[in-house]
């Protein structure tokens, strides 16, 4: 009874967040920056921020996470962190030799009013930025938005600093990846390449946060979107953005800057969202969807139909980020399941607009976003009426244990199970992976808890 403090009665809270379903902006900026090849993220603030973000990402991906910090002191909080950042830029280029340094701010540097534009241009004037190298930056105050906002700001900065329009347009589609796993990015790229579409994905964490063990440590792994490719995004003929909360800002900036039109898509979780993605790509790249992908779809549908009776009517509670929750909820509904409780700490219009439509046939569904939409509230709802399945990040394990409910891990952070960066949950194959995980969780639970005489060889 780890969460014995939770009662079914909902308390009217004025000010307090208990067990958050979110974290702060800078970790999102750090994650996104790792999707640029040869990039060293830099946290402009106290040492602790950087250490926490690196630990959080390291626990989740089980990969080395490198990032610099301005190591603020009492002095910098009074006189500003300009000197720290300038000398940090010097140190990093001299010692760690990255292609790009991606600076993000923290609550501290924002509040004392450090001006990144001015600081970075001073570093440049002082000749601290070597020829051909670049320092990009974005503002990520922790008291505005959440980790998703930070991710979005970092991706928008990639457009701001790199995307360039030349007269030579290319027959290429930009794929702007929202907050998802490297495995998911890899799957989206695979689907596009099966269609023989020419694409540039950014940011791209494949080959960065899922690297092979070969006895060598590479500070800058082989993956990530190259600077050359980031520049070329301005000459692409169209952009697809996956997840409006994390990519719409970048897509709009790219259209404004380079006149590349875009379409906002859901992250392709489930067959409906995957259908929409492939049709959109087919339309904009002017390429047919090959039979092999129809077969993948058919296999997913086959898997669902074989197990439909176990999925029907099951009540699900889920939490995480709007960009994944929306298509995931849609997928669960299409599996004939009942997503009844949905919580995200990230305030989101997208979530508010899409959920009522997706959940229109499930009148008992409760969903909430923003401040006070936390895991404590989720648990209170579950106490009022239980669910059959939990889907979310590791912070659900306490509820899963207290309520003896099957649990599928999905989202960020997952600190207690491996493999999420290897096995995709997007696309048809990813959908099959997800359905299999859901069924395994249910059926293992039944086999373990049902009456002795009901244990059966076949289901």
């Amino acid at each position, binding site marked *: 009874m780890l969460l014995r403090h939770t009662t079914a009665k909902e308390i009217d809270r004025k000010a307090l967040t*208990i067990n958050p379903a979110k974290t702060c902006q800078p970790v999102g900026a750090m994650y996104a920056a790792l999707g640029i090849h040869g990039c060293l993220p830099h946290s402009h603030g*106290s040492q602790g921020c950087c*250490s926490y973000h690196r630990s959080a990402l390291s626990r989740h991906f089980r990969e080395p996470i490198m990032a610099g910090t301005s190591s*603020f002191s009492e002095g910098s909080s009074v006189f500003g962190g300009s000197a720290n950042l300038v000398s940090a830029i010097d140190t990093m280029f001299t010692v760690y030799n990255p292609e790009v340094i991606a600076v993000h701010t923290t*609550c501290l540097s924002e*509040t004392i009013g450090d001006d990144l534009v001015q600081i970075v241009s001073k570093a440049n004037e002082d000749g601290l930025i070597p020829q051909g190298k670049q320092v990009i930056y974005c503002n990520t105050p*922790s008291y505005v938005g959440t980790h998703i906002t930070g991710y979005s700001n970092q991706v928008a900065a990639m457009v701001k600093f790199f995307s360039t329009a030349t007269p030579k347009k290319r027959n290429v589609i930009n794929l702007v990846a929202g907050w998802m796993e490297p495995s998911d990015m890899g799957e989206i790229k695979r689907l596009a390449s099966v269609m023989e579409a020419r694409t540039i994905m950014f940011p791209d964490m494949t080959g960065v946060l899922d690297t092979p063990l070969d006895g060598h440590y590479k500070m800058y792994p082989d993956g990530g979107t190259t600077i050359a490719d980031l520049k070329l995004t301005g000459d692409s003929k169209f952009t697809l953005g996956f997840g409006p909360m994390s990519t719409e800002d970048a897509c709009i900036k790219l259209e404004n800057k380079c006149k590349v039109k875009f379409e906002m898509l859901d992250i392709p979780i489930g067959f409906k969202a995957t259908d929409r993605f492939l049709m959109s790509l087919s339309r904009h790249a002017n390429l047919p969807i090959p039979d092999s992908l129809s077969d993948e779809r058919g296999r997913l549908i086959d898997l669902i139909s074989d197990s439909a009776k176990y999925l029907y009517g099951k009540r699900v509670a889920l939490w995480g980020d709007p960009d994944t929750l929306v298509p995931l909820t849609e997928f669960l509904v299409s599996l004939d399941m009942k997503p009844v409780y949905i919580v995200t700490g990230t305030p989101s219009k997208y979530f508010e607009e899409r959920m009522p439509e997706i959940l229109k046939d499930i009148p008992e569904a409760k969903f909430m976003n923003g401040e006070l939409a936390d895991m404590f509230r989720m648990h209170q709802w579950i106490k009022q009426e239980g669910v059959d399945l939990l889907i979310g990040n590791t912070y659900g394990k306490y509820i899963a244990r207290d309520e003896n409910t099957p649990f599928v891990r999905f989202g960020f952070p997952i600190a207690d199970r491996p493999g999420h960066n290897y096995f995709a949950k997007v696309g048809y194959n990813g959908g099959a992976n997800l359905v299999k995980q859901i069924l395994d969780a249910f059926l293992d639970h039944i086999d373990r808890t049902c009456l002795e005489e009901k244990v059966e060889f076949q289901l």
Partner: protein
Amino acid sequence: MAHILDERQKQVSVAGLNERTIDCNKASLAGSVSQRACVFCGSRVVLYPIVDALHLIHGPIGCAAYTWDIRGSLSSGPELHRLSFCTDLQERDVIFGGENKLYASIIELIDKHQPKAAFIYTTCIVGVIGDDVESICRRVEKEKSIPVIPVQAPGFQGSKKDGYKVACESIFKLVGTKSKPYTPAKSINILGDFNLAGELWILLEYYKRMGVHVNATITGDGRVDDICNAHNAALNVVQCSGSMNYLAKMMKDEYNIPSMRVSYFGIEDMSDALYDVARFFNDEDMMEKARQLVKEEFVRLMPQLAWYKERLTGKKAAIYVGGAFKAISLVKALRLIGVQSVIVGSQTGTTEDYELIKQLCDEGTIIVDDSNPVELSHFVKEKKADIFIGGVKERPIAHKIGLGFCDHNHERKEPLAGYEGMINFAKEIYATAMSPVWKFTKNP
């Protein structure tokens, strides 16, 4: 050692080769990928295991999210410490101040959970916007009649080590505020064990067998009432001295309680810890019981350790941990199972600690303060280490290079303290060093 930043040269030394004293307790160089954390982090990890207190973080959500259930400090009772409470400051609060929000939050929480005390952590931004946390704490303390202690921990005010000091000051505010009706004469406080994986419970068992009464555990499985009564103990036994020496010193000055520094890792240090306590009480019966205990454990342990030593002899280890005193114990414990320490480093060691390490280690051992991944990976290659002992940020790098890894930090899952901890440690080192996976790291 070209891979060391020029400015950091003085923070690295080699045992037996150069006579340089380590220049430590320096702020990290801006831009270096330091493994260190901040004041808030230091105070939070030390106070976290006080299980019947309320821990509320006043700041934006990140500081709360990253310290939610982060270390396996086990509780034998309440689990209040494992929840994450935060005022979740927003832009409007940064502009207009977060005082009202803070007050409302503390009141709501105390009403709901009836904690024995409340710790209110201030983060970087609160230090800058200037909320008067002290006065709110005083006000709530009056209204609710429990200690409400402001933990002034803005991250920028120093490193993790400074946070330890802040935590000690906060704990010290509780000490002496209440006396239990009776505290036995031969009683100790255990300082600086955080009950990771239940380690404290092992120690309690040993002291019980010796006839020593443990008065307060600070802070592992900690209870507010015990801490309030801590001034009635005869002795402070201090482990993880980096975090707790300051508290011991304050208790010495104020209540004249002597302290001793111990370590519970490895057979030698564990046994010394028990003997030293018996010696302090000058109690022959207690000493005899300690001897008996050590003998029993020793007889049980040695054959098992011999098995590991036979197989591990010749293996080399790199150690990079938070506190230097732990590093010293690890060097000794590794030696017991035939493993040589070739790199020894810490985030927060003192000059004296490093001198001690230098004397203890074999010639050529690299000794380093506040290192970073690039340095560490070079050192590891240079010294041909087989195993790395460290924390969460070091694990994946060690694995990528093809080294075994043992977490001797928050993420340990088996107790590593005491005699049975020594066996667990040997087992863990063996399992990781001898894992067949390392034979397959190179392509055929």
